[in-house]
């Protein structure tokens, strides 16, 4: 049937006594290799690849829109920072989806059976997925910066690169990372693509409704709402793409830390706890 030789098992026991398996010469799977595999899993299906392409196309589209409409004749808003800021809207929606699918596709397609038999250390696998998600977030940031730079140079608005520092890049990177991690957190929490995505998009809507109805909630919003807490980071409302004027001081960092704990750290912790003790079906 096949000319290929059957693989020779590594041990050569004789029939008889039960043998033990010598694993002393086997090295554990390196973390970097696992991260590489998790990254590959994100682009080796049509769905994963198209999500990546969509992120790139949407990022470019928002930059182009600002390029066309950013100059109203009086002030030219087409600066590098504004171009970068406008990419936060599409990326803010799509990167979390990527984070969600990174986790949930393993459960919906049941490949978790294979993943956890090849790498039984489940925490190790989730850590590798987290790093893979952050790598993608970083790649999205680099892409956004490249598009913004090209657009800013082309627009040639007065002072296009003024007031821009390394800290802005860091803050923008932090925003993208938080987005990806929030998706990952929701994915881990629900282990179901549809539920995680719906909840991710419905929660801010519900929150906005509640904020308008309950006054004390409005005051608490920066502490408990991640989107509100993130606004000072880049001076842009990530949901509308409109500039907001908020300073970024110690209190704002506290807001961010609190909201991050509620929406990212706690869901990841609960999700991890569940995955570590549950049956991998």
């Amino acid at each position, binding site marked *: 049937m096949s000319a290929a030789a059957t*693989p020779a098992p590594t041990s050569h026991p004789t029939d008889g006594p039960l043998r033990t398996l010598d694993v002393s010469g086997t090295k554990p799977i390196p973390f970097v290799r696992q991260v590489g595999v998790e990254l590959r899993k994100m682009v080796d299906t049509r769905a994963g690849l198209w999500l990546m392409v969509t992120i790139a196309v949407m990022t470019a589209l928002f930059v182009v829109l600002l390029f066309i409409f950013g100059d109203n004749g009086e002030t030219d808003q087409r600066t590098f920072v504004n171009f970068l800021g406008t990419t936060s809207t599409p990326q803010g929606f799509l990167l979390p989806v990527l984070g969600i699918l990174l986790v949930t596709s393993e459960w919906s397609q049941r490949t978790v059976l294979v993943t956890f038999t090849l790498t039984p250390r489940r925490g190790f696998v989730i850590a590798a997925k987290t790093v893979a998600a952050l790598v993608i977030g970083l790649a999205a940031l680099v892409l956004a910066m490249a598009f913004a730079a090209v657009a800013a140079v082309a627009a040639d608005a007065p002072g296009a690169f003024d007031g821009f520092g390394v800290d802005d890049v860091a803050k923008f990177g932090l925003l993208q990372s938080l987005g990806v991690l929030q998706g990952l957190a929701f994915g881990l929490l629900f282990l179901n693509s549809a539920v995680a995505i719906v909840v991710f998009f419905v929660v801010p809507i519900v929150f906005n409704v509640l904020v308008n109805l309950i006054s004390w909630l409005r005051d608490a919003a920066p502490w408990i709402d991640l989107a509100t807490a993130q606004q000072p980071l880049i001076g842009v409302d990530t949901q509308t793409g409109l500039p907001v004027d908020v300073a970024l001081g110690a209190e704002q960092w506290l807001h961010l830390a609190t909201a991050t704990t509620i929406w990212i750290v706690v869901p990841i912790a609960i999700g991890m706890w569940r995955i570590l003790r549950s049956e991998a079906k």
Partner: protein
Amino acid sequence: MITVEGLTKTFGDFVAVDDVSFECRPGRVTGFLGPNGAGKTTTMRILTGLTRTSQGSATIGGHRYADIPNPGLHVGVLLDASAQHGGRTGREVLTLGARTMGLPSSRVDEMLELVSLTPVEAKRRVKNYSLGMRQRLGIAHALLGDPSVLILDEPANGLDPAGIHWMRGLLRDYANRGGTVLLSSHLLHEVEVIADELIVIGQGRIVAQGTKAELLQTAGTYVRAADSAAIAAALETNGMTALPSGDGGFRSDAEPAQVGKVAAEEGIALVELRPADGAGLEEMFLQLTAETQREGDAA
């Protein structure tokens, strides 16, 4: 090589695996046989660290599965051939496995050739694969790391008779080179063709285990009459057992001469009367699982 001792797994009040103990030796293909829901899959999932035990232990070569570094290099596992991302190509599925284990991509080509998946088939997405092709891909995946132990859950499911014959040759060859194989099946015929040793399980308990030769050796008599009900009734009236063997005949513990005498006395015309040796595992399987098999769950 595989040692399971006093293994028990309960889900709430349900006992899925009940005090199961067995061993699988190198050079042998061990068949794990039982009706659906008997506890085969749960046992294999515990063996591969996917499910926790309630009691007892399951080790491979003296190690808990989770303690084996890069386990794919030591233990080849196929638990569910359908548990693959439908959007990946067959080649990609193997590539992911090879990368995780740190193997060169040439290994992927070798395995594809071994399981007779053509380059064209390997480029197709798994969702377009038949169950038989998925099983071949799963076998290829299990063998990627050149392991010395194979754990395969229902690997022959979906294979045609030629495929089952192929798998028998593959696993026979693998075992002859010193490999240890544990494979499960709910179909007697598959196991009878492929395995050397048998573990028969029903409702979480082991009901028989031994070599195929030992289990095939049955004493007693096989009898078949034109009137099945009459011969069964006659045997029972005379204090002899009459177990249906699935083809209209019956197996009895009594000697052929005694059965013939009863038939003559009762005036029942026999179609067949002979010693029951070589009657096949089918009879044993029906017998062993008849009482434990769930209603309507045909094996």
